[in-house]
């Protein structure tokens, strides 16, 4: 967009449907996708990450690294909160300290040293980490670090999550819990040139996936997030609708319990990787959306290794490997998953295909809570899970999943251990030199691919259906799409 | 003959109900001699069945004594009571409800024999069942039928056979014919008379039908609201009723004779509720002869000589 003067007087609201309603509008009180998608419109972050995951100034006009641990941010001046207060460095300091106290976002801000948050002057703040932490800026671009107004938070007390006050282009107007959230344009938005084009935005919760498409077709809504695979072609072929598709940061994988017989044998893991026809599975289960993954990171993530080779479907090779491992007669195992239709389908197909190498797998579907608990405890054989590299930084996408320090509950549910991988992950985390980091991550991905603690399954796609008259919409790989650029034709 | 088989002393049975204490049987005294039939008559709800049940300890008495052959059976424990049950039995009013619909005739009649282990072998039991069926006039081909396939009269015969199975001395007949049609009723009444003679049985015969009571009884007790108001032999009750209630009751019965004209005593009002009954005479509210004393003092059952007992302050002086 560009012309701020003639901001069109839109009366028609933009209606967006997503799977569920926001839970809270306090970034530190929860960290779910639905809430973040709304909060993205309400709060601004110090740093922005555009659709190509490039870092750009946000509330901070500029920043510089003072030393290995510390960044100094220069704040934009004259930024107004929705309650009329002006943004100062104190708000930033307050926000970050508050975030540090919250368990929900500790994975985003956890590296920051609370004593290292120093207000220099109202528009200058220094933020230091406990140890050198290269991905800090990416983390500060995450919606969860949106800047809060100290006064608003203290005034609202326990109920703050329902009365959010940010500096974003939209402010909360009305919230019918479980159903709709109405946002209206914030007229004093700091970025004059980027003021919201549509006056009112309504988020609607429509849980039944198919119904979002139907609503879109029947003009009940303007934008439908997370179109299901079966409806993608329908939307794309519909004369009034448009399918906006972009790869996102999510990946789905089938994990082995590498800490347990027989999956502690790399040959078994490789054999299984060869024995499943992942291309076909992805086609069947995801109906051509997203793509089969070749390694642990999706293509959108910085430093993802594009040279990795897919295992491919090769039952003979699989049998050979099984034989080498002394398991040509196969074994009995279980595949666990939670109640997610695609994962259940994957499990069922796996079950079927593994029969070819004499593996008899039983599928067990668990409720999410029990599933997390059981996989953390290492009771499992094989399991299906996903991961979203929300920051777009490979640290987030690799460290918790493959470092031996994170076994179990901390993220590494495959109990995979490799000293070299540990070493490289540690190195890349503290090193600020992008080239060194990139090299380290490339190698990690190579190793992980070869040692196959996973069956690399699928990288996802943001699938948004919009009506033709909706313009200016772009998917954000993190899923927190920006709506202030959207306008009606 | 006139050896007392059963004696009931100060018998009380109260039921706890939502609305209060229900005095179903309230301090009654009587005895039954061996081989005789005592008729117990009264209107619906006056406590006749309760009396019968308490005597058999199917209900636990609230107070009083029940002497069977001189021994108070209310003090008996379960085991002793089981022995007692061979001596005393009951025949119920409703010939359908009193037979388990899921059991065949032979099973029903054999049950008391099995429970009390009277016979050791099946054939013995079967023989006895056949014998009993013969006694009460049930054709042998009916052994395997079920109660619902039979008419009321036959069903009642089953009930009688069951009661006779253990060779009791004493049987409570709780309105055994009131559910039956007249022609069948007569058959059953005759049967019971025969059985009494044949087995030297003693009956407590409960009915609300004075004609039936008169036909079967040696002595008659008239009950009203939990109390016995008059007790005497049948002749004198019918010829010369002493209690105003008995008088009214007798006069109320329409007789199938066209030549006899009687003076009707029409009682006002209904039988009052047995829940927390008033002190004083229970009949007070409906009595033609009531006086103040009736409302204040409960009349006791008084011996009027000649084995006649009446519970009325003015018995003998009424006109």
């Amino acid at each position: 967009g560009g012309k701020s003067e003639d901001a069109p007087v839109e009366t028609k609201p933009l209606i967006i449907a997503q799977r569920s309603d926001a839970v809270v509008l306090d970034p530190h009180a929860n960290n779910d996708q639905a809430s973040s998608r709304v909060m993205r419109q309400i709060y601004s972050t110090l740093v922005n990450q555009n659709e190509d995951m490039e870092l750009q100034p946000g509330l901070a006009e500029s920043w510089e690294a003072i030393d290995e641990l510390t960044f100094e941010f220069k704040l934009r001046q004259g930024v107004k909160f929705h309650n009329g207060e002006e943004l100062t460095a104190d708000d930033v300091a307050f926000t970050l300290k508050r975030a540090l106290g919250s368990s929900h976002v500790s994975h985003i801000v956890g590296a920051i040293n609370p004593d290292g948050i120093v207000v220099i002057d109202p528009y200058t703040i220094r933020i230091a980490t406990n140890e050198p932490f290269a991905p800090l800026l990416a983390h500060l671009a995450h919606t969860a670090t949106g800047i809060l107004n100290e006064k608003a938070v203290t005034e609202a007390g326990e109920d703050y999550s329902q009365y959010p006050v940010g500096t974003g282009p939209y402010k909360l107007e009305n919230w019918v819990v479980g159903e709709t959230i109405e946002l209206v344009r914030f007229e004093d938005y700091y970025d004059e040139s980027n003021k919201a084009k549509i006056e009112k935005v309504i988020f609607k919760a429509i849980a039944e996936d198919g119904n979002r498409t139907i609503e879109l077709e029947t003009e009940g809504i303007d934008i439908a997030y997370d179109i299901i695979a079966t409806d993608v072609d329908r939307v794309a072929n519909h004369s009034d609708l448009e399918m906006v598709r972009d790869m996102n940061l999510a990946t789905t994988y089938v994990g082995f319990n590498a800490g347990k017989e027989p999956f502690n044998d790399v040959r078994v893991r490789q054999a299984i990787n060869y024995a499943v026809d992942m291309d076909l599975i992805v086609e069947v289960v995801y109906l051509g959306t997203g793509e089969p993954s070749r390694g642990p990171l999706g293509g959108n993530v910085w430093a993802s290794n594009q040279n990795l080779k897919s295992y491919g479907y090769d039952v003979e090779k699989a049998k050979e490997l099984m034989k080498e491992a002394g398991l040509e007669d196969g074994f009995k195992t279980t595949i666990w998953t939670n109640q997610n239709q695609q994962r259940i389908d994957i499990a069922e197909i796996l079950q079927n295909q593994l029969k070819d190498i004499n593996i008899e797998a039983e599928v067990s579907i668990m409720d999410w809570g029990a599933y997390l608990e059981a996989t953390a405890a290492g009771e499992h054989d094989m399991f299906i899970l996903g991961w979203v590299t929300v920051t777009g930084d490979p640290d987030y996408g690799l460290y918790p999943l493959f470092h031996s320090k994170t076994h179990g509950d901390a993220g590494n549910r495959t109990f995979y251990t490799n000293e070299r991988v540990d070493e490289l992950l540690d190195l890349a985390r503290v090193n600020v030199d992008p080239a060194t980091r990139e090299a380290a991550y490339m190698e990690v991905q190579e190793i992980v691919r070869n040692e196959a603690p996973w069956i690399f399954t699928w990288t996802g796609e943001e699938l948004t259906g919009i009506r033709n008259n909706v313009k200016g919409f772009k998917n954000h790989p993190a899923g927190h799409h920006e709506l202030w650029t959207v306008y009606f034709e | 003959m006139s050896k007392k088989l059963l004696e009931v002393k100060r018998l009380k049975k109260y039921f706890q109900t939502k609305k209060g204490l229900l005095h179903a049987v309230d301090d009654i005294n009587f005895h039954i001699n061996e081989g005789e039939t005592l008729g117990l008559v009264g209107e619906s709800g006056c406590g006749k069945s309760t009396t019968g049940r308490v005597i058999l300890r199917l209900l636990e008495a609230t107070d009083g004594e029940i002497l069977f052959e001189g021994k108070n059976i209310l003090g008996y424990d379960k085991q002793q009571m089981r022995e007692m049950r061979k001596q005393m039995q009951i025949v119920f009013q409703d010939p359908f409800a009193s037979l388990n619909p899921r059991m065949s005739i032979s099973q029903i009649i054999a049950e008391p024999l099995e429970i009390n282990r009277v016979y050791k072998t099946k054939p013995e039991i079967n023989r006895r069942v056949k014998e009993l069926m013969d006694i009460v006039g049930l054709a042998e081909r009916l052994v395997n039928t079920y109660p619902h396939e039979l008419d009321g009269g036959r069903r009642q015969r089953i009930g009688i056979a069951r009661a006779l199975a253990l060779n009791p001395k004493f049987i409570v007949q709780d309105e055994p014919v009131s559910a039956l049609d007249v022609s069948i009723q007569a058959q059953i009444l005759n049967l019971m008379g025969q059985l009494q003679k044949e087995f030297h049985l003693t009956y407590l015969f409960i009915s609300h039908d004075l004609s039936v009571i008169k036909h079967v009884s040696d002595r008659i007790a008239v009950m009203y609201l939990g109390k016995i108001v008059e007790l005497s032999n049948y002749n004198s009750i019918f010829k010369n009723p002493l209690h105003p209630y008995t008088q009214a009751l007798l006069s109320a019965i329409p007789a199938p004779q066209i030549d006899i004209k009687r003076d009707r005593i029409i009682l006002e009002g209904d039988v009052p509720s047995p829940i927390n009954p008033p002190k004083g005479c229970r009949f007070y509210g409906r009595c033609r002869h009531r006086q103040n004393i009736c409302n204040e003092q409960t009349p006791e059952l008084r011996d009027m000589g000649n084995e006649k007992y009446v519970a009325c302050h003015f018995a003998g002086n009424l006109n």
Partner: protein
Amino acid sequence: MKNQKLLEIKDLSIQYITDEGIVRAVENMNLEISRGETLGLVGETGAGKTTTALGIMGLIPNPPGKIIKGSIIFEGENLVGKSPQELRKIRGNKISMIFQDPMTSLNPVMPIGEQIAEVIKLHQRVSAAEAIIKAQEMLKTVGIPNERHKEYPHQFSGGMRQRVVIAIALACNPGLLIADEPTTALDVTIQAQVLNLMKKLKEEFQTSMIMITHDLGIVAEICDKVAIMYAGNVVEYGEKISLFTNRKHPYTIGLFNSIPNIEEDMVSLRPIKGLMPDPTDLPSGCPFHPRCPNVTKVCSQRVPKSIEVAKDHFVSCLLFEK
């Protein structure tokens, strides 16, 4: 006044057609009632008494019941074949009926005053308020305090309920009252009250009555004529005095002998042997023949005709056919 025929039943046959078979509940019935007269209809369970009454009222449940043939002539008009509308005008108005069980024949959720007023409103041109007033008067007539008209049936005792039913039946001053065992469910002392009341009101209202009962005592007390029914057939029919003093039919005799008599001492009853026949499978010929002490060969072969053995005294028995 007498001898003026109010109701005449001719050759009436009513059947119930059920899964179990056809029940011939009433067979070739012939009866007459004059104004002011009371007819006793006596018989054991299943004899067809209620069916006869319902037949007159036009209330035979259909299915399974059906009037097969015959006529019911009331005030000169044949009720059989009349339209439901015409019958409705007569019911409750010119002919009314009291049912056996006072506990169940009143609507439990309607105040009794309203239940009486209902019939008044239906047949008389009165306003709702007037009907209620009339209903209260009726209550008083049957000896219930009129201020209790707002109460519900369960608040009354059995005898009082039966009085309410009587009030309903008499509210429109009907020419014919059919009472179907009106006191069977009541205690003797209460029965005496109710019978007394009925006798009184019958005289007061100049109503003819069919008194259905199986109690010969009641018949002796209030009827002018008696019809004895057995398995759907009227076996003996006549003036009460004639019939009571000169019983002809073996069934009638058996019936009288079965009853323990309060007035005289009997050593033993002389019951009728055997059982009531299966209503779907009545014996051929005279339906009573299997139980009859005087049975002859022809009894199972021929249906007896009705023979006048004395003036106005009819018997259906082959012993009397010459």
